[in-house]
């Protein structure tokens, strides 16, 4: 499996660390109810098909990446920088 890091180019999967679903980017406000945190930390769509999840180019540029890919075919359709995304700024 290979991911094309926006900075480093195509790399073998072993250079990356996997975190989980994109959900981890949508951190609730400090005051949000417990259910919001439960969804944020635990509950997942877990699709059999297209998904967006978070990878870290640990052996490369140390960037966190949003990978758009298919969980059934393993086809990767997009890789974007977490830091570069809309709303990365707070």
């Amino acid at each position: 499996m290979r991911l094309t890091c926006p900075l480093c180019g195509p790399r073998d999967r072993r250079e990356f660390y996997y975190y989980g679903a994109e959900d981890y980017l949508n951190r609730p406000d400090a005051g949000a109810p417990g259910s919001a945190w439960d969804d944020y930390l635990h509950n997942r769509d877990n699709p059999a098909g297209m998904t967006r999840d978070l990878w870290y180019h640990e052996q490369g540029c140390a960037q966190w990446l949003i990978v758009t890919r298919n969980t059934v075919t393993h086809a990767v359709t997009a890789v974007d920088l977490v830091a570069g995304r809309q709303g990365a700024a707070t």
Partner: protein
Amino acid sequence: MPELIAKGPFDGVEPLVMAGLTLAPVEDGPIWSIALLPGGAKAAAKALKPLGLAFPGPGGISEKAGLRLVWTGRDQAFLFGDLPAGLEGAAVVTDQSGGWAGVTLTGPGAARALGRLVAVDVRLAAFPVGGVVRTGLNHMSAVILRTGEDAFEIRVFRSMARTCWHELAEVLRHLGARAPLSA
């Protein structure tokens, strides 16, 4: 008053010559990490210009008069050489001197030899001369510079110097043993 004698990661290590390739330690001088702050690119460029250096993009190296500025991450580069003034406010500068262990791998077929060990594509089209990649040297993260078609500089964390040497020496030993084989 103590007398502190500096010691490099490869002190006392002799170059290894095998299969027509040479694995040798590198003596590094000062290494500075220069990380641009948000919006700091312009000011940094201004500070680097008089030195004939430009802040490198991904995989790039900017070199001039013994100074070498090597891309190492997003808006981040390592400067090999003395630190210029004027980067304050534009970038965060951190001393990385002595934190890295470096070796060179040179000789005909060096690219294919290194290419056996690293997962990245070392063919010239993917990894041109004068370029840099951050990748895995087996289980270690490494910074690899291509200084020639068959010449590389490889750096890993200083504490891993021995493992780095071992990994590369193994490649050379295996190639050396294969050499007499007719394909």
